[in-house]
Protein backbone atom coordinates (compact mmCIF):
# COMPACT_ATOMS: atom_id res chain seq x y z
CA UNK A 1 0.00 0.00 0.00
CA UNK A 2 1.44 3.34 -1.00
CA UNK A 3 1.79 6.21 1.46
CA UNK A 4 -1.00 8.07 -0.30
CA UNK A 5 -3.34 5.10 -0.03
CA UNK A 6 -2.44 4.73 3.65
CA UNK A 7 -3.16 8.42 4.24
CA UNK A 8 -6.54 8.11 2.54
CA UNK A 9 -7.32 4.97 4.53
CA UNK A 10 -6.67 6.69 7.86
CA UNK A 11 -8.31 9.97 6.80
CA UNK A 12 -11.54 8.13 5.99
CA UNK A 13 -11.41 6.07 9.22
CA UNK A 14 -10.66 8.47 12.10
CA UNK A 15 -11.08 5.67 14.66
CA UNK A 16 -8.29 3.63 13.10
CA UNK A 17 -6.13 6.72 13.07
CA UNK A 18 -6.86 7.31 16.74
CA UNK A 19 -6.07 3.68 17.51
CA UNK A 20 -2.73 3.97 15.71
CA UNK A 21 -1.90 7.03 17.81
CA UNK A 22 -3.07 5.75 21.15
CA UNK A 23 -2.46 2.01 21.33
CA UNK A 24 1.36 2.07 21.66
CA UNK A 25 1.51 4.67 24.48
CA UNK A 26 -1.51 3.09 26.19
CA UNK A 27 0.15 -0.33 26.12
CA UNK A 28 3.27 1.17 27.63
CA UNK A 29 1.29 3.14 30.19
CA UNK A 30 -0.94 0.19 31.03
CA UNK A 31 1.75 -2.43 31.52
CA UNK A 32 4.68 -0.48 32.92
CA UNK A 33 2.93 2.22 34.89
CA UNK A 34 -0.40 0.83 36.03
CA UNK A 35 1.02 -2.70 36.11
CA UNK A 36 3.72 -1.80 38.57
CA UNK A 37 1.25 0.26 40.59
CA UNK A 38 -1.06 -2.74 40.94
CA UNK A 39 1.89 -5.01 41.72
CA UNK A 40 2.74 -2.58 44.50
CA UNK A 41 -0.85 -2.57 45.74
CA UNK A 42 -0.85 -6.35 45.71
CA UNK A 43 2.39 -6.47 47.71
CA UNK A 44 0.82 -4.35 50.42
CA UNK A 45 -1.69 -7.13 51.09
CA UNK A 46 1.11 -9.58 51.89
CA UNK A 47 2.93 -9.71 55.20
CA UNK A 48 6.35 -10.54 56.41
CA UNK A 49 6.94 -13.46 58.71
CA UNK A 50 8.56 -12.08 61.87
CA UNK A 51 10.72 -15.14 62.48
CA UNK A 52 11.91 -16.12 59.02
CA UNK A 53 11.82 -12.58 57.51
CA UNK A 54 10.18 -14.21 54.48
CA UNK A 55 7.26 -12.63 52.60
CA UNK A 56 4.07 -14.59 53.16
CA UNK A 57 2.11 -14.45 49.91
CA UNK A 58 -1.39 -14.70 51.31
CA UNK A 59 -3.90 -11.84 51.20
CA UNK A 60 -4.01 -10.18 54.60
CA UNK A 61 -4.62 -6.77 56.12
CA UNK A 62 -1.96 -7.37 58.76
CA UNK A 63 0.54 -4.97 57.19
CA UNK A 64 -2.02 -2.18 56.99
CA UNK A 65 -2.98 -2.91 60.58
CA UNK A 66 0.67 -2.38 61.43
CA UNK A 67 0.64 1.04 59.72
CA UNK A 68 -2.52 2.33 61.38
CA UNK A 69 -2.06 0.88 64.88
CA UNK A 70 1.63 1.19 65.74
CA UNK A 71 2.33 4.53 67.39
CA UNK A 72 5.63 5.08 65.53
CA UNK A 73 3.99 4.51 62.14
CA UNK A 74 1.05 6.81 62.92
CA UNK A 75 3.57 9.48 63.92
CA UNK A 76 5.36 9.11 60.60
CA UNK A 77 2.11 9.57 58.66
CA UNK A 78 1.00 12.55 60.76
CA UNK A 79 4.44 14.17 60.60
CA UNK A 80 4.55 13.88 56.80
CA UNK A 81 0.95 15.03 56.42
CA UNK A 82 1.49 18.09 58.63
CA UNK A 83 4.62 19.02 56.68
CA UNK A 84 2.81 18.56 53.34
CA UNK A 85 -0.09 20.78 54.44
CA UNK A 86 2.23 23.47 55.82
CA UNK A 87 4.42 23.44 52.69
CA UNK A 88 1.35 23.65 50.43
CA UNK A 89 -0.12 26.60 52.31
CA UNK A 90 3.21 28.45 52.38
CA UNK A 91 3.78 27.82 48.66
CA UNK A 92 0.29 29.11 47.82
CA UNK A 93 0.80 32.28 49.87
CA UNK A 94 4.22 33.02 48.35
CA UNK A 95 3.20 32.03 44.81
CA UNK A 96 0.02 34.11 44.54
CA UNK A 97 1.62 37.59 44.31
CA UNK A 98 4.42 36.31 42.06
CA UNK A 99 2.01 34.48 39.74
CA UNK A 100 -0.32 37.49 39.69
CA UNK A 101 2.55 39.74 38.67
CA UNK A 102 3.79 37.29 36.03
CA UNK A 103 0.39 36.73 34.49
CA UNK A 104 -1.24 40.13 34.76
CA UNK A 105 1.43 42.84 34.87
CA UNK A 106 4.78 41.67 33.48
CA UNK A 107 5.24 42.21 29.75
CA UNK A 108 7.86 41.24 27.19
CA UNK A 109 11.35 40.78 28.61
CA UNK A 110 10.23 41.11 32.21
CA UNK A 111 7.75 38.28 31.72
CA UNK A 112 10.36 36.04 30.08
CA UNK A 113 12.77 36.87 32.90
CA UNK A 114 10.24 35.80 35.53
CA UNK A 115 9.28 32.56 33.79
CA UNK A 116 12.93 31.61 33.30
CA UNK A 117 13.73 32.70 36.85
CA UNK A 118 11.00 30.47 38.27
CA UNK A 119 12.04 27.46 36.19
CA UNK A 120 15.82 27.92 36.37
CA UNK A 121 16.27 26.14 39.74
CA UNK A 122 14.51 23.09 38.28
CA UNK A 123 17.24 22.76 35.67
CA UNK A 124 19.94 21.98 38.21
CA UNK A 125 20.42 18.75 40.11
CA UNK A 126 17.97 18.18 42.88
CA UNK A 127 20.69 16.70 45.15
CA UNK A 128 23.00 19.67 44.63
CA UNK A 129 20.24 22.00 45.76
CA UNK A 130 19.40 19.95 48.84
CA UNK A 131 23.02 19.73 49.95
CA UNK A 132 23.51 23.43 49.19
CA UNK A 133 20.58 24.20 51.47
CA UNK A 134 22.14 22.09 54.23
CA UNK A 135 25.18 24.36 54.09
CA UNK A 136 23.09 27.53 53.91
CA UNK A 137 21.08 26.45 56.93
CA UNK A 138 24.01 25.11 59.00
CA UNK A 139 24.88 26.57 62.40
CA UNK A 140 27.87 28.37 60.85
CA UNK A 141 26.03 28.90 57.55
CA UNK A 142 25.28 32.13 55.77
CA UNK A 143 21.73 32.46 57.09
CA UNK A 144 22.86 32.29 60.72
CA UNK A 145 25.70 34.69 59.84
CA UNK A 146 23.27 37.23 58.34
CA UNK A 147 21.09 37.00 61.43
CA UNK A 148 24.08 37.59 63.69
CA UNK A 149 25.31 40.54 61.61
CA UNK A 150 21.86 42.09 61.81
CA UNK A 151 21.85 41.51 65.57
CA UNK A 152 18.86 39.19 65.20
CA UNK A 153 20.54 35.97 66.34
CA UNK A 154 18.24 36.00 69.38
CA UNK A 155 15.24 35.82 67.07
CA UNK A 156 16.68 32.81 65.21
CA UNK A 157 17.50 31.07 68.49
CA UNK A 158 14.03 31.75 69.82
CA UNK A 159 12.55 30.19 66.69
CA UNK A 160 14.83 27.15 67.06
CA UNK A 161 13.74 26.74 70.68
CA UNK A 162 10.11 26.33 69.60
CA UNK A 163 9.17 22.87 70.85
CA UNK A 164 8.36 20.31 68.16
CA UNK A 165 9.73 22.20 65.15
CA UNK A 166 13.01 23.58 66.55
CA UNK A 167 16.43 22.01 66.88
CA UNK A 168 20.10 22.76 67.45
CA UNK A 169 20.38 24.56 64.07
CA UNK A 170 18.18 25.33 61.07
CA UNK A 171 19.71 22.45 59.13
CA UNK A 172 18.72 19.99 61.82
CA UNK A 173 15.22 21.29 62.54
CA UNK A 174 11.80 20.91 60.96
CA UNK A 175 11.86 24.67 60.29
CA UNK A 176 14.88 24.16 58.02
CA UNK A 177 13.24 21.17 56.31
CA UNK A 178 10.12 23.26 55.76
CA UNK A 179 12.18 26.05 54.15
CA UNK A 180 13.85 23.59 51.76
CA UNK A 181 10.54 21.94 50.82
CA UNK A 182 8.94 25.33 50.10
CA UNK A 183 11.93 26.35 48.00
CA UNK A 184 11.92 23.09 46.04
CA UNK A 185 8.23 22.95 45.21
CA UNK A 186 7.48 26.65 44.75
CA UNK A 187 7.80 26.56 40.92
CA UNK A 188 5.22 23.76 40.83
CA UNK A 189 2.77 26.12 42.52
CA UNK A 190 3.68 29.31 40.63
CA UNK A 191 3.42 27.89 37.11
CA UNK A 192 -0.12 26.42 37.22
CA UNK A 193 -1.32 29.44 39.17
CA UNK A 194 0.14 31.83 36.59
CA UNK A 195 -1.39 29.72 33.81
CA UNK A 196 -4.82 29.99 35.48
CA UNK A 197 -4.45 33.75 35.92
CA UNK A 198 -3.27 34.21 32.33
CA UNK A 199 -6.59 32.83 31.17
CA UNK A 200 -8.61 35.47 33.05
CA UNK A 201 -9.66 38.09 30.46
CA UNK A 202 -8.71 41.65 31.42
CA UNK A 203 -12.27 42.74 30.75
CA UNK A 204 -13.44 40.78 33.82
CA UNK A 205 -11.26 42.93 36.06
CA UNK A 206 -12.44 46.08 34.28
CA UNK A 207 -16.04 44.96 34.66
CA UNK A 208 -15.52 44.46 38.37
CA UNK A 209 -14.02 47.94 38.79
CA UNK A 210 -16.72 49.36 36.54
CA UNK A 211 -19.41 47.98 38.84
CA UNK A 212 -17.85 49.67 41.85
CA UNK A 213 -15.37 47.16 43.25
CA UNK A 214 -12.18 48.55 44.75
CA UNK A 215 -8.97 46.70 43.76
CA UNK A 216 -9.03 44.62 46.98
CA UNK A 217 -12.63 43.58 46.30
CA UNK A 218 -11.81 42.71 42.71
CA UNK A 219 -8.95 40.57 43.92
CA UNK A 220 -11.11 38.75 46.47
CA UNK A 221 -14.23 38.34 44.32
CA UNK A 222 -12.81 37.81 40.84
CA UNK A 223 -9.05 37.14 40.71
CA UNK A 224 -8.81 34.72 43.63
CA UNK A 225 -11.80 32.50 42.67
CA UNK A 226 -10.50 32.25 39.11
CA UNK A 227 -7.01 31.38 40.37
CA UNK A 228 -8.42 28.54 42.49
CA UNK A 229 -8.16 25.83 39.80
CA UNK A 230 -4.50 26.83 39.42
CA UNK A 231 -3.99 26.77 43.18
CA UNK A 232 -5.67 23.36 43.31
CA UNK A 233 -3.44 22.00 40.54
CA UNK A 234 -0.33 23.49 42.14
CA UNK A 235 -1.24 22.22 45.57
CA UNK A 236 -1.66 18.68 44.25
CA UNK A 237 1.98 18.94 43.14
CA UNK A 238 3.35 20.46 46.34
CA UNK A 239 1.25 18.15 48.52
CA UNK A 240 2.10 14.92 46.73
CA UNK A 241 5.77 15.80 46.19
CA UNK A 242 6.16 16.48 49.92
CA UNK A 243 4.32 13.29 50.86
CA UNK A 244 6.57 11.15 48.66
CA UNK A 245 9.98 12.79 49.09
CA UNK A 246 12.69 10.94 51.03
CA UNK A 247 15.86 12.88 50.16
CA UNK A 248 15.07 16.23 51.77
CA UNK A 249 14.03 14.69 55.12
CA UNK A 250 17.18 12.57 55.18
CA UNK A 251 19.58 15.41 54.35
CA UNK A 252 18.01 18.36 56.16
CA UNK A 253 16.05 18.46 59.37
CA UNK A 254 15.31 16.60 62.57
CA UNK A 255 15.86 12.83 62.71
CA UNK A 256 12.16 11.75 62.67
CA UNK A 257 11.13 9.49 59.76
CA UNK A 258 8.91 10.63 56.87
CA UNK A 259 6.76 8.37 54.67
CA UNK A 260 9.23 8.43 51.78
CA UNK A 261 12.17 7.54 54.02
CA UNK A 262 10.16 4.73 55.55
CA UNK A 263 9.43 3.27 52.10
CA UNK A 264 13.09 3.56 51.18
CA UNK A 265 14.30 1.92 54.37
CA UNK A 266 11.70 -0.86 54.44
CA UNK A 267 12.17 -1.98 50.86
CA UNK A 268 15.96 -1.68 51.09
CA UNK A 269 17.89 -2.59 54.23
CA UNK A 270 14.92 -3.97 56.14
CA UNK A 271 13.67 -6.03 53.21
CA UNK A 272 10.07 -5.59 54.34
CA UNK A 273 8.46 -5.08 50.93
CA UNK A 274 4.86 -5.42 52.19
CA UNK A 275 5.31 -2.63 54.75
CA UNK A 276 7.05 -0.41 52.14
CA UNK A 277 4.13 -1.04 49.78
CA UNK A 278 1.56 -0.26 52.47
CA UNK A 279 3.37 3.00 53.25
CA UNK A 280 3.39 3.95 49.55
CA UNK A 281 -0.36 3.51 49.44
CA UNK A 282 -0.79 6.09 52.24
CA UNK A 283 0.06 9.16 50.03
CA UNK A 284 -2.27 7.87 47.31
CA UNK A 285 -5.14 7.71 49.82
CA UNK A 286 -4.25 11.12 51.28
CA UNK A 287 -4.17 12.75 47.82
CA UNK A 288 -7.52 11.21 46.89
CA UNK A 289 -8.93 12.55 50.15
CA UNK A 290 -7.40 15.96 49.45
CA UNK A 291 -8.83 16.07 45.91
CA UNK A 292 -12.32 15.13 47.04
CA UNK A 293 -12.24 17.82 49.74
CA UNK A 294 -11.02 20.36 47.15
CA UNK A 295 -13.81 19.31 44.81
CA UNK A 296 -16.40 19.64 47.54
CA UNK A 297 -15.23 23.23 48.15
CA UNK A 298 -15.72 23.94 44.43
CA UNK A 299 -12.05 24.21 43.50
CA UNK A 300 -12.71 22.79 40.04
CA UNK A 301 -15.99 24.57 39.30
CA UNK A 302 -14.36 27.24 37.16
CA UNK A 303 -12.53 24.68 34.99
Amino acid sequence: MSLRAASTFFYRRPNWYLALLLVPPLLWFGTVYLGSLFALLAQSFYRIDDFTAQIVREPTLATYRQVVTQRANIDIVLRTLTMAVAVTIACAIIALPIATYMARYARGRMKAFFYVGVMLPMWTSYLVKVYAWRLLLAKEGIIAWVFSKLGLLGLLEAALETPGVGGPSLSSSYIGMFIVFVYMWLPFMILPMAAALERVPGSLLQASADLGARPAQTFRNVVLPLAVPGIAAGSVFTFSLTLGDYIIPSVVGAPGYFIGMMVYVQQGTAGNIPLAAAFSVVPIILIFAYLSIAKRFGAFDAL
Partner: protein
Amino acid sequence: MTAAIEFREVSRIFGDVRAVDDVSFAIEPGEFFAMLGPSGSGKTSCLRLVAGFDSPDRGQVLLDGSDVSSVPPYDRNVNTVFQDYALFPHMNVLQNVAYGPRVRGASLQEREKLAREMLDLVQLGAQGGRRPAQLSGGQRQRVALARALINRPKVLLLDEPLGALDLKLREEMQIELKGLQRRLGITFVYVTHDQGEALSMADRVAVFNQGKIEQLAAPRELYSRPATAFVARFVGSANVAGATLAQSITGAATPFAIRAENISVHGENAPAAANAVSAPGSVVAVQYHGAASRWQVKLDAGDVWSALVTEEAARSLIDLAVGARVKLTWPRDAAVLLSPASSGS
Protein backbone atom coordinates in the same frame (compact mmCIF):
# COMPACT_ATOMS: atom_id res chain seq x y z
CA MET B 1 -28.19 72.25 31.29
CA THR B 2 -24.95 70.57 32.29
CA ALA B 3 -23.66 68.08 29.77
CA ALA B 4 -23.72 64.44 30.90
CA ILE B 5 -20.29 63.95 29.37
CA GLU B 6 -17.92 66.57 28.07
CA PHE B 7 -14.51 66.20 26.43
CA ARG B 8 -12.34 69.31 26.47
CA GLU B 9 -9.37 69.14 24.12
CA VAL B 10 -8.67 65.55 25.16
CA SER B 11 -5.64 63.67 23.83
CA ARG B 12 -4.49 60.14 24.56
CA ILE B 13 -1.14 59.17 23.07
CA PHE B 14 0.39 55.68 22.94
CA GLY B 15 4.01 55.96 21.83
CA ASP B 16 3.75 57.84 18.56
CA VAL B 17 0.10 56.95 17.96
CA ARG B 18 -2.44 59.62 18.78
CA ALA B 19 -5.35 57.35 19.71
CA VAL B 20 -7.40 60.39 20.69
CA ASP B 21 -6.21 63.62 19.14
CA ASP B 22 -7.42 66.88 20.67
CA VAL B 23 -11.08 65.88 20.78
CA SER B 24 -13.85 68.11 22.18
CA PHE B 25 -17.55 67.35 22.32
CA ALA B 26 -20.48 67.29 24.74
CA ILE B 27 -23.23 64.70 25.23
CA GLU B 28 -26.59 65.85 26.60
CA PRO B 29 -28.32 64.01 29.46
CA GLY B 30 -30.70 61.36 28.12
CA GLU B 31 -29.13 61.35 24.69
CA PHE B 32 -28.46 58.24 22.65
CA PHE B 33 -25.00 59.05 21.37
CA ALA B 34 -23.13 56.84 18.92
CA MET B 35 -19.39 56.82 18.29
CA LEU B 36 -18.86 55.42 14.82
CA GLY B 37 -15.62 54.62 13.09
CA PRO B 38 -13.35 51.88 11.79
CA SER B 39 -11.17 49.95 14.23
CA GLY B 40 -8.31 52.04 15.53
CA SER B 41 -10.15 55.29 14.92
CA GLY B 42 -10.21 56.29 18.59
CA LYS B 43 -13.84 55.56 19.46
CA THR B 44 -13.06 52.80 21.96
CA SER B 45 -10.24 54.87 23.47
CA CYS B 46 -12.77 57.63 24.11
CA LEU B 47 -15.13 55.13 25.74
CA ARG B 48 -12.34 53.90 28.02
CA LEU B 49 -11.68 57.49 29.03
CA VAL B 50 -15.32 57.91 30.02
CA ALA B 51 -15.37 54.60 31.93
CA GLY B 52 -12.13 55.48 33.70
CA PHE B 53 -10.05 52.50 32.53
CA ASP B 54 -7.66 55.03 31.09
CA SER B 55 -6.87 58.69 31.72
CA PRO B 56 -6.17 61.44 29.20
CA ASP B 57 -2.63 62.68 28.55
CA ARG B 58 -4.01 66.14 27.84
CA GLY B 59 -7.35 67.85 28.34
CA GLN B 60 -10.24 67.08 30.64
CA VAL B 61 -13.06 64.57 30.76
CA LEU B 62 -16.10 65.90 32.60
CA LEU B 63 -19.01 63.87 33.90
CA ASP B 64 -22.02 65.91 34.96
CA GLY B 65 -19.88 69.04 35.02
CA SER B 66 -17.04 67.81 37.22
CA ASP B 67 -13.57 66.83 36.04
CA VAL B 68 -13.11 63.07 36.49
CA SER B 69 -9.82 62.74 34.61
CA SER B 70 -8.15 61.14 37.66
CA VAL B 71 -11.20 59.42 39.23
CA PRO B 72 -10.96 55.59 39.14
CA PRO B 73 -13.77 53.60 37.47
CA TYR B 74 -15.19 52.37 40.79
CA ASP B 75 -15.92 55.95 41.86
CA ARG B 76 -17.70 56.95 38.64
CA ASN B 77 -21.45 56.80 38.17
CA VAL B 78 -20.97 55.16 34.78
CA ASN B 79 -21.38 51.52 33.78
CA THR B 80 -20.22 49.54 30.78
CA VAL B 81 -21.54 46.71 28.62
CA PHE B 82 -18.41 45.04 27.30
CA GLN B 83 -17.88 43.72 23.82
CA ASP B 84 -17.18 40.21 25.16
CA TYR B 85 -19.83 40.75 27.89
CA ALA B 86 -17.18 40.05 30.59
CA LEU B 87 -19.60 37.98 32.68
CA PHE B 88 -17.97 36.37 35.72
CA PRO B 89 -17.75 32.66 34.82
CA HIS B 90 -17.68 31.48 38.44
CA MET B 91 -20.95 33.18 39.37
CA ASN B 92 -24.45 32.36 38.24
CA VAL B 93 -26.60 34.88 36.39
CA LEU B 94 -28.23 36.28 39.52
CA GLN B 95 -24.85 36.70 41.27
CA ASN B 96 -23.44 38.39 38.18
CA VAL B 97 -26.25 40.91 38.10
CA ALA B 98 -26.11 41.43 41.88
CA TYR B 99 -22.35 42.12 41.77
CA GLY B 100 -22.66 45.93 41.68
CA PRO B 101 -24.80 46.22 44.83
CA ARG B 102 -22.70 43.49 46.48
CA VAL B 103 -19.42 45.38 46.24
CA ARG B 104 -21.24 48.52 47.35
CA GLY B 105 -22.27 46.81 50.55
CA ALA B 106 -25.93 45.87 49.94
CA SER B 107 -27.31 42.99 52.00
CA LEU B 108 -27.86 39.62 50.31
CA GLN B 109 -31.64 40.04 50.43
CA GLU B 110 -31.57 43.57 49.08
CA ARG B 111 -29.20 42.86 46.20
CA GLU B 112 -30.97 39.68 45.12
CA LYS B 113 -34.28 41.54 45.03
CA LEU B 114 -32.70 44.25 42.87
CA ALA B 115 -31.04 41.67 40.64
CA ARG B 116 -34.36 39.86 40.10
CA GLU B 117 -35.98 43.13 39.08
CA MET B 118 -33.21 43.79 36.58
CA LEU B 119 -33.45 40.25 35.17
CA ASP B 120 -37.19 40.75 34.72
CA LEU B 121 -36.45 43.99 32.90
CA VAL B 122 -34.36 42.12 30.33
CA GLN B 123 -36.80 39.16 30.27
CA LEU B 124 -34.43 36.68 31.86
CA GLY B 125 -36.28 36.27 35.16
CA ALA B 126 -36.21 32.46 34.94
CA GLN B 127 -32.50 32.12 34.18
CA GLY B 128 -31.05 33.42 37.48
CA GLY B 129 -29.63 30.08 38.59
CA ARG B 130 -27.71 29.36 35.40
CA ARG B 131 -24.04 29.88 34.68
CA PRO B 132 -23.10 32.32 31.89
CA ALA B 133 -21.58 29.42 29.93
CA GLN B 134 -25.04 27.80 29.75
CA LEU B 135 -26.63 30.82 28.03
CA SER B 136 -26.89 31.77 24.37
CA GLY B 137 -25.09 34.83 23.02
CA GLY B 138 -28.25 36.90 23.09
CA GLN B 139 -29.00 35.91 26.69
CA ARG B 140 -25.47 36.75 27.81
CA GLN B 141 -25.90 40.11 26.18
CA ARG B 142 -29.02 40.74 28.27
CA VAL B 143 -27.30 39.64 31.48
CA ALA B 144 -24.45 42.06 30.75
CA LEU B 145 -27.04 44.77 30.22
CA ALA B 146 -28.90 43.98 33.46
CA ARG B 147 -25.62 43.89 35.38
CA ALA B 148 -24.57 47.28 34.02
CA LEU B 149 -27.96 48.88 34.71
CA ILE B 150 -28.41 47.67 38.29
CA ASN B 151 -26.32 50.48 39.78
CA ARG B 152 -28.67 53.01 38.12
CA PRO B 153 -25.84 54.73 36.27
CA LYS B 154 -26.31 58.19 34.79
CA VAL B 155 -24.46 57.02 31.72
CA LEU B 156 -24.39 53.57 30.12
CA LEU B 157 -21.44 52.82 27.87
CA LEU B 158 -21.89 50.09 25.26
CA ASP B 159 -18.78 48.83 23.48
CA GLU B 160 -19.86 47.08 20.25
CA PRO B 161 -22.42 45.20 22.33
CA LEU B 162 -24.12 43.45 19.41
CA GLY B 163 -20.98 42.57 17.48
CA ALA B 164 -21.05 38.87 18.40
CA LEU B 165 -24.73 38.30 17.57
CA ASP B 166 -26.22 37.14 14.29
CA LEU B 167 -28.06 39.58 12.06
CA LYS B 168 -31.66 38.82 13.09
CA LEU B 169 -30.89 38.90 16.82
CA ARG B 170 -28.89 42.08 16.31
CA GLU B 171 -31.87 43.82 14.77
CA GLU B 172 -34.18 42.70 17.59
CA MET B 173 -31.68 43.88 20.21
CA GLN B 174 -31.34 47.26 18.47
CA ILE B 175 -35.06 47.88 18.86
CA GLU B 176 -34.97 46.63 22.44
CA LEU B 177 -31.98 48.77 23.40
CA LYS B 178 -33.54 51.87 21.93
CA GLY B 179 -36.80 51.17 23.80
CA LEU B 180 -34.92 50.55 27.04
CA GLN B 181 -33.01 53.79 26.69
CA ARG B 182 -36.23 55.73 26.11
CA ARG B 183 -37.92 54.08 29.11
CA LEU B 184 -35.04 54.59 31.54
CA GLY B 185 -34.00 58.03 30.29
CA ILE B 186 -30.32 57.15 30.79
CA THR B 187 -27.61 58.61 28.57
CA PHE B 188 -26.35 55.87 26.23
CA VAL B 189 -22.94 56.07 24.60
CA TYR B 190 -22.79 53.43 21.92
CA VAL B 191 -19.54 52.48 20.20
CA THR B 192 -19.84 50.68 16.88
CA HIS B 193 -18.19 50.25 13.50
CA ASP B 194 -21.55 49.44 11.91
CA GLN B 195 -22.97 52.59 10.34
CA GLY B 196 -26.44 51.03 10.02
CA GLU B 197 -26.54 50.46 13.78
CA ALA B 198 -25.43 54.02 14.53
CA LEU B 199 -27.89 55.59 12.08
CA SER B 200 -30.89 53.55 13.20
CA MET B 201 -30.50 54.00 16.96
CA ALA B 202 -28.64 57.20 17.80
CA ASP B 203 -29.91 60.73 18.32
CA ARG B 204 -26.48 61.99 17.27
CA VAL B 205 -23.47 60.27 15.77
CA ALA B 206 -19.81 61.21 16.05
CA VAL B 207 -17.78 59.78 13.17
CA PHE B 208 -14.21 59.04 14.26
CA ASN B 209 -11.19 58.79 12.03
CA GLN B 210 -7.54 58.69 13.10
CA GLY B 211 -8.24 59.93 16.61
CA LYS B 212 -10.36 62.86 15.54
CA ILE B 213 -14.07 63.47 15.06
CA GLU B 214 -14.72 64.01 11.35
CA GLN B 215 -18.34 64.99 11.82
CA LEU B 216 -20.82 65.12 14.68
CA ALA B 217 -24.42 65.29 13.52
CA ALA B 218 -27.87 63.72 13.63
CA PRO B 219 -28.10 60.53 11.50
CA ARG B 220 -30.22 62.10 8.76
CA GLU B 221 -27.83 65.01 8.33
CA LEU B 222 -24.82 62.72 8.44
CA TYR B 223 -26.26 60.64 5.64
CA SER B 224 -27.55 63.42 3.44
CA ARG B 225 -24.88 66.02 4.10
CA PRO B 226 -21.55 64.30 4.87
CA ALA B 227 -18.96 66.97 5.64
CA THR B 228 -15.88 65.08 4.49
CA ALA B 229 -14.92 62.43 1.99
CA PHE B 230 -14.26 60.00 4.85
CA VAL B 231 -17.77 60.41 6.24
CA ALA B 232 -19.29 60.15 2.77
CA ARG B 233 -17.48 56.88 2.16
CA PHE B 234 -17.88 55.39 5.64
CA VAL B 235 -21.53 56.27 6.19
CA GLY B 236 -23.47 54.63 3.37
CA SER B 237 -20.47 54.13 1.10
CA ALA B 238 -20.95 57.07 -1.27
CA ASN B 239 -18.90 57.67 -4.38
CA VAL B 240 -16.41 60.45 -3.78
CA ALA B 241 -14.83 62.67 -6.39
CA GLY B 242 -11.56 64.20 -5.24
CA ALA B 243 -10.38 67.56 -6.58
CA THR B 244 -8.88 66.15 -9.80
CA LEU B 245 -11.82 63.92 -10.63
CA ALA B 246 -14.31 66.70 -9.81
CA GLN B 247 -12.40 69.00 -12.15
CA SER B 248 -12.66 66.56 -15.03
CA ILE B 249 -16.36 65.86 -14.46
CA THR B 250 -17.84 69.25 -13.55
CA GLY B 251 -15.08 71.65 -14.49
CA ALA B 252 -14.76 72.85 -10.86
CA ALA B 253 -12.13 71.51 -8.45
CA THR B 254 -14.49 71.25 -5.46
CA PRO B 255 -14.66 67.64 -4.20
CA PHE B 256 -18.12 66.14 -3.97
CA ALA B 257 -19.91 62.95 -2.96
CA ILE B 258 -22.72 61.23 -4.75
CA ARG B 259 -24.67 58.24 -3.41
CA ALA B 260 -24.98 55.08 -5.44
CA GLU B 261 -28.80 55.27 -5.33
CA ASN B 262 -28.73 58.71 -6.97
CA ILE B 263 -26.75 57.54 -9.96
CA SER B 264 -28.45 56.04 -12.98
CA VAL B 265 -26.80 53.97 -15.67
CA HIS B 266 -27.43 54.63 -19.36
CA GLY B 267 -26.12 53.38 -22.64
CA GLU B 268 -23.15 55.30 -23.99
CA ASN B 269 -25.21 57.21 -26.54
CA ALA B 270 -28.23 58.11 -24.43
CA PRO B 271 -29.23 61.79 -24.71
CA ALA B 272 -28.20 64.04 -21.82
CA ALA B 273 -31.02 65.14 -19.49
CA ALA B 274 -31.43 68.71 -18.30
CA ASN B 275 -29.69 69.61 -15.04
CA ALA B 276 -27.82 66.33 -15.01
CA VAL B 277 -24.15 65.58 -14.73
CA SER B 278 -22.65 62.58 -16.42
CA ALA B 279 -19.42 60.66 -16.60
CA PRO B 280 -18.49 57.91 -19.10
CA GLY B 281 -16.99 54.60 -18.12
CA SER B 282 -17.13 50.84 -18.60
CA VAL B 283 -18.88 48.18 -16.54
CA VAL B 284 -16.58 46.18 -14.24
CA ALA B 285 -19.13 44.04 -12.38
CA VAL B 286 -22.84 43.72 -11.70
CA GLN B 287 -23.97 42.33 -8.33
CA TYR B 288 -27.59 41.30 -8.08
CA HIS B 289 -29.20 42.11 -4.70
CA GLY B 290 -32.87 41.38 -5.37
CA ALA B 291 -34.74 44.68 -5.38
CA ALA B 292 -31.76 46.37 -6.96
CA SER B 293 -28.37 45.55 -8.36
CA ARG B 294 -25.08 47.29 -7.81
CA TRP B 295 -23.16 48.21 -10.92
CA GLN B 296 -19.44 48.79 -10.57
CA VAL B 297 -18.28 51.13 -13.29
CA LYS B 298 -14.70 52.19 -13.98
CA LEU B 299 -14.81 55.84 -14.97
CA ASP B 300 -12.63 56.91 -17.85
CA ALA B 301 -11.23 59.49 -15.44
CA GLY B 302 -9.91 56.71 -13.17
CA ASP B 303 -11.99 55.71 -10.11
CA VAL B 304 -14.40 52.80 -9.84
CA TRP B 305 -17.85 54.02 -8.80
CA SER B 306 -20.95 52.10 -7.96
CA ALA B 307 -24.50 52.78 -9.00
CA LEU B 308 -27.60 51.20 -7.49
CA VAL B 309 -29.96 50.20 -10.29
CA THR B 310 -33.55 49.21 -9.48
CA GLU B 311 -35.03 46.16 -11.21
CA GLU B 312 -37.31 48.45 -13.19
CA ALA B 313 -34.45 50.58 -14.49
CA ALA B 314 -32.41 47.47 -15.19
CA ARG B 315 -34.88 46.34 -17.87
CA SER B 316 -33.63 48.95 -20.32
CA LEU B 317 -30.02 47.88 -19.65
CA ILE B 318 -30.61 44.22 -20.39
CA ASP B 319 -28.14 44.13 -23.29
CA LEU B 320 -25.28 45.70 -21.33
CA ALA B 321 -22.76 43.22 -19.94
CA VAL B 322 -19.40 43.45 -18.17
CA GLY B 323 -17.05 45.51 -20.33
CA ALA B 324 -19.87 47.49 -21.97
CA ARG B 325 -19.47 51.24 -22.38
CA VAL B 326 -21.96 53.21 -20.25
CA LYS B 327 -22.66 56.68 -18.99
CA LEU B 328 -23.34 57.41 -15.31
CA THR B 329 -25.66 60.36 -14.76
CA TRP B 330 -27.04 62.06 -11.69
CA PRO B 331 -29.07 65.23 -10.96
CA ARG B 332 -26.79 68.18 -10.36
CA ASP B 333 -28.30 68.93 -6.94
CA ALA B 334 -27.83 65.34 -5.66
CA ALA B 335 -24.08 65.88 -5.36
CA VAL B 336 -22.92 66.93 -1.87
CA LEU B 337 -20.00 69.33 -1.88
CA LEU B 338 -17.29 68.34 0.59
CA SER B 339 -14.81 70.48 2.47
CA PRO B 340 -11.64 70.36 0.35
CA ALA B 341 -9.27 69.98 3.33
CA SER B 342 -9.82 66.30 4.09
CA SER B 343 -11.03 65.09 0.71
CA GLY B 344 -7.83 63.15 0.21
CA SER B 345 -8.33 60.85 3.22
